């Protein structure tokens, strides 16, 4: 009788995704259903995790370059990735209703406000801007502009 593999292909894929998010074999091994550090190292060699991660980074870098953000350094790319993941996790958790059960919508909004502002800071974009409506006078507009 053929021996069934201890870990399914699905678990191996999840392990890579966790490694992508967490960044260390030890961190991944501590997650539920995950194998030991040694097994993860073996999988990383067999499935070429480093190359895959590099490809993902390159993809992000290309994306940023097309957005005109060539000057961004690789540590910034990592931070942007973390923010993306943080947002994704938060959305998943809110949707599933398991861990995050916000009492007020403003809590959710402030969370996303934080990630959005941080992302803009990393990209070197303004985190706030002066906005006006038709209610402002010419004098006020120019005085306000001169003070910014």
């Amino acid at each position, binding site marked *: 009788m053929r021996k069934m593999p201890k870990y399914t292909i699905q678990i191996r894929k999840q392990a890579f995704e966790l490694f992508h998010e967490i960044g260390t074999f030890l961190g991944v091994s501590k997650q539920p259903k995950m194998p030991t550090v040694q097994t993860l190292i073996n999988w990383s060699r067999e499935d070429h995790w480093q190359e895959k991660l590099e490809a993902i980074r390159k993809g992000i870098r290309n994306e940023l370059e097309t957005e005109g953000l060539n000057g961004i350094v690789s540590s910034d790319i990592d931070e942007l990735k973390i923010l993306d993941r943080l947002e994704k996790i938060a959305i998943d958790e809110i949707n599933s209703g398991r861990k995050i059960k916000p009492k007020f919508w403003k809590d959710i909004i402030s969370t996303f406000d934080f990630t959005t502002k941080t992302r803009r800071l990393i990209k070197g974009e303004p985190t706030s801007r*002066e*906005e006006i409506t*038709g209610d402002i*006078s010419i*004098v006020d*507009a*120019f005085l306000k502009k001169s003070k910014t």
Partner: protein
Amino acid sequence: MTSALLTPSSKKVKLEEVTDWYLSTYENDPLRWIYDSINIKDGLWEKQEEIISSVFQNSYTAVRSGHSTGKTFASALCVLAFLYTQIPSKVITTAPTFRQVAKILWRDIRKLYTHRKIKLGGRLLTLELFCDDDWFALGLHPREYDINAFQGYHSENILVVLDESPGVSSDLYDSAISLLTSENAHLLEIGNPTSPSGHFYNAFQKNSKYNKIHINCLDSPNIKAGKVIRPYLVIQKWINDRKDTWGENSPLWQSRVLGEFSTSEENSFAPLDWVERAMG
């Protein structure tokens, strides 16, 4: 792009985009600013537009005119257009008497300000339109008008308006000139040509640096149209009355109707402007 300043709307736009758009649109186009910003019932007639354009295009503009041709109205528009398109700027106006400062030019400025189509901003007082410390229009009482009083009014963008200019003393005129030291400095002299001497007369001589504008009552819209289309401008009835009263050869007719400097002063007892000043 449409300026949020000109189209009241709840839609939010970026401040810098609006101010940049505003300056690129209006800084060199005062007439467009006027038509976009001020509610002028019948529009302006060609000479009024000529005055306004000239003030922005020339350092020195002199306007001699007959009665009720809308020259003071055009001056008031110049004051507002300059103040709100040359930012920040100082606009100083004066006239021979306090009554002329307060009751003629500044009455029109106040009226136009209240007929604005958009929110101009600033604080309007009797003789002042204050936007900021270095950004204002001011009607100066002639007594305040000495060289020392002018020291504080120098600015990169400045317009000086001398209303009823022939009656402005040479000291006042010299003080006004002392303000025009910057690249974007402009002087507008406006009045009835009552005296064939002095700074106003000199402005119309061949070698003067002024852009010269002449308005003859006979060219004004109501006279040309043969009917009253702009009730606030000179009408045919007044022309006929003056012709009967003064006669076409009188200096008053030449000055008050034709907008020409009187040529008969040599033979007169006293210059026309002296007589008028004496009459108060």
